[in-house]
């Protein structure tokens, strides 16, 4: 949209209403609709009934969105755009929508669980001091039938974030992308501050995330403005056309690209723009961390792949080297700093930074293979990390989650099943064969080598070896150490969490043993919308 089209809008004759492919955007509309209804539920339903309504509504919305998505998928043939070119409907977008819907469903299950932490992981009233009389009163349901106090706003917030993520991955121009970025970020900031336990840590995390997120958004917006100045359009394809023409100011292009990249990398927690990640992963309520770690990563890398592959493919010669450096930095920061972490949530946060580096390696392979490999990696990583946080939420002592690594010592003796499942997931994160993590790394590195990035892949392999060390450290700790006498217990999860963890583990196994199901999906013909 440039100045002249604005002029058309304001000054000239009637505008044509843009064609809307309702079948294609139905999943997004349903998710947002569900979120709005969730707000109304908050407004009109009595407190003790809200949880039930919200859970039903959230699951129903995501389920219906999945159904609409599936119905559309069967009829989908050619990549296209809708809503006046704002939204691309192509195979990458659809794959990411499917991934996001499935991951969000599992995340909502984790969020909804009230068996692990009585009353749920979320605070009833964040401003009330923990353990005070008011706090206690809020946690008792009317009639004294047990704990009920919980911020059920978390459900509409999750849906809003999910809708934003879906738009983010399909946005066909930078402005839509920016709006989607804000729509997905703002709920996340709030969600991070809602932990029932360790409230100050959680609220600190939320504020940090918000401040830094706003900072990063400003970078994105700045980059957007400069790129608009460069190409005269915010549409990705127009920017691509402009870069091939090559008769404009490269300063605008590269400064704009640099700022845009910073904004995107921040969301994807790629080092050196990762600083928020450990603090926020640690502070946020674990189900929210699971949602963030899985879905935000998918959305952010979906957008990164689209921006790189659609808009900047032609100019890649000049910027790819710099992005190499970012990928290396991210892998190194994640792998090396992960070594000395003592908190399991922080450790997984560093692992996610390292994984962001691996994902960036795939996203930098500007070929169809690179694209499909990155998408596959996202699917695999999303489910694994979701299940990892699901397990973390189970290991508890009197103070809530026992996240200090020393408390995990000898876990295999207390709860062998949990220890084995967690080991399997860690092996998947490390990329050991017969897990989805191996296939993901394999396809990503293969694509990168084929696109002439062999040195980067060598570094990536080294870094994954370093990272494997800290995963194995946890395994060794769980299996070969004696449990502390006052160590944590493993809570038997309720149905919701069990389903979510099982789903994550099964997908991790399935994609490791029979990755063809997903690889076929992201296989040849993964074209972006024109």
């Amino acid at each position, binding site marked *: 949209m*440039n*100045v*002249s089209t*604005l*002029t058309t*809008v*304001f*000054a*000239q*004759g*009637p*505008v044509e*209403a843009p064609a809307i492919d309702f079948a294609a955007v139905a999943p997004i509309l349903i998710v947002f609709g569900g979120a*709005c209804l969730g*707000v*109304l539920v*908050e*407004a*009109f339903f009595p407190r003790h009934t809200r949880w039930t309504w919200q859970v039903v509504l959230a699951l129903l919305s995501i389920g219906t969105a999945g159904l609409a998505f599936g119905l559309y998928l069967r009829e989908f043939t050619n990549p296209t755009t809708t809503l006046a070119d704002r939204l691309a409907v192509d195979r990458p977008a659809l794959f990411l929508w499917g991934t996001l819907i499935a991951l969000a469903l599992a995340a909502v299950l984790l969020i909804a669980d009230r068996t692990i932490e009585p009353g749920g992981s979320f605070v009833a009233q964040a401003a009330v001091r923990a353990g005070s009389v008011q706090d206690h009163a809020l946690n008792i349901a009317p009639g004294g039938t047990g704990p009920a106090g919980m911020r059920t706003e978390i459900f509409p917030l999750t849906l809003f974030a999910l809708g934003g993520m879906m738009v983010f991955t399909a946005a066909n121009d930078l402005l839509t992308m920016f709006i989607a970025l804000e729509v997905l970020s703002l709920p996340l900031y709030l969600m991070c501050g809602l932990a029932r336990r360790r409230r100050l840590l959680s609220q600190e995390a939320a504020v940090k995330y918000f401040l830094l997120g706003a900072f990063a958004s400003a970078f994105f917006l700045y980059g957007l403005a400069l790129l608009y*100045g*460069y190409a*005269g*359009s915010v549409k990705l394809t127009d920017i691509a056309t402009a870069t091939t*023409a090559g*008769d*404009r*100011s490269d300063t*605008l292009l590269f400064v704009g690209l640099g700022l845009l990249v910073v904004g995107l990398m921040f969301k994807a927690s790629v080092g050196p723009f990762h600083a928020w990640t450990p603090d926020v992963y640690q502070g946020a309520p674990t189900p929210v961390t699971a949602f963030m770690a899985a879905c935000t990563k998918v959305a952010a890398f979906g957008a990164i792949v689209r921006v790189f592959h659609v808009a900047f493919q032609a100019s890649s010669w000049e910027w790819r080297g710099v992005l190499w450096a970012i990928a290396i930095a991210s892998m190194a920061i994640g792998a090396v700093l992960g070594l000395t972490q003592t908190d399991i949530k922080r450790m997984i946060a560093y692992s996610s930074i390292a994984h962001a580096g691996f994902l960036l390696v795939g996203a930098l392979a500007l070929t169809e293979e690179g694209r499909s490999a990155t998408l596959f990696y996202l699917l695999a990583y999303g489910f694994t990390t979701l299940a990892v946080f699901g397990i973390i939420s189970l290991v508890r002592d009197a103070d809530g989650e026992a996240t200090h690594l020393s408390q995990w010592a000898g876990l295999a003796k207390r709860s062998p099943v949990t220890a084995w499942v967690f080991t399997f997931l860690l092996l998947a994160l490390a990329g050991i064969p017969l897990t989805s993590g191996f296939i993901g790394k394999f396809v990503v590195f293969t694509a990168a080598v084929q696109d002439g990035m062999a040195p980067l892949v060598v570094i990536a392999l080294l870094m994954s070896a370093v990272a494997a060390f800290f995963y194995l450290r946890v395994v060794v700790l769980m299996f070969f150490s004696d449990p502390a006498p006052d160590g944590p217990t493993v809570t038997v999860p309720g149905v919701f969490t069990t389903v979510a963890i099982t789903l994550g583990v099964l997908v991790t196994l399935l994609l490791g043993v029979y990755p063809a199901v997903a690889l076929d999906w992201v296989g040849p013909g993964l074209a972006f919308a024109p």
Partner: protein
Amino acid sequence: MPVLGVTTTVAGPVIEAALAAPVHPAQQPPPADPATGLALYVPLVLLFVLAAGFAIFSVVIAPFVGPRRYNRAKLDAYECGIEPSPQPIVGGGRMPVAYYLTAMLFILFDIEMVFLYPFAVSADALGVFGLVEIALFIITVGFAYVYVWRRGGLDWN
């Protein structure tokens, strides 16, 4: 550039862009010349310069031309018109949270309503489609309003 004078309300930039357009020489897509690409930003830069100039001018000129009659309130930090904290006498040194809540809500709804201006200006051109869109927008904002209202965000006590 007479256009620059039109910066009136909060909605300034948007309307400005809209009004700036008719007098802009190029009605076509931006020319391929890189210099012209940057030239688009000249009004913006001018605006910056003007704003900065005004701020510096105000700060610099005030001590010279203003009368100097101090009292206690004038020497306090400026905090939106109310007396700044701590106030040992009223409320035990605390600020009423409701104040911030109301102020925040005002800003949120205010900014959302700003969208109505561009719609109103070009309602003719946008037609039924525009009407439906803005109705949807108002309904969505209505959800938020209902939430605030039902959950006691508007109660002072």
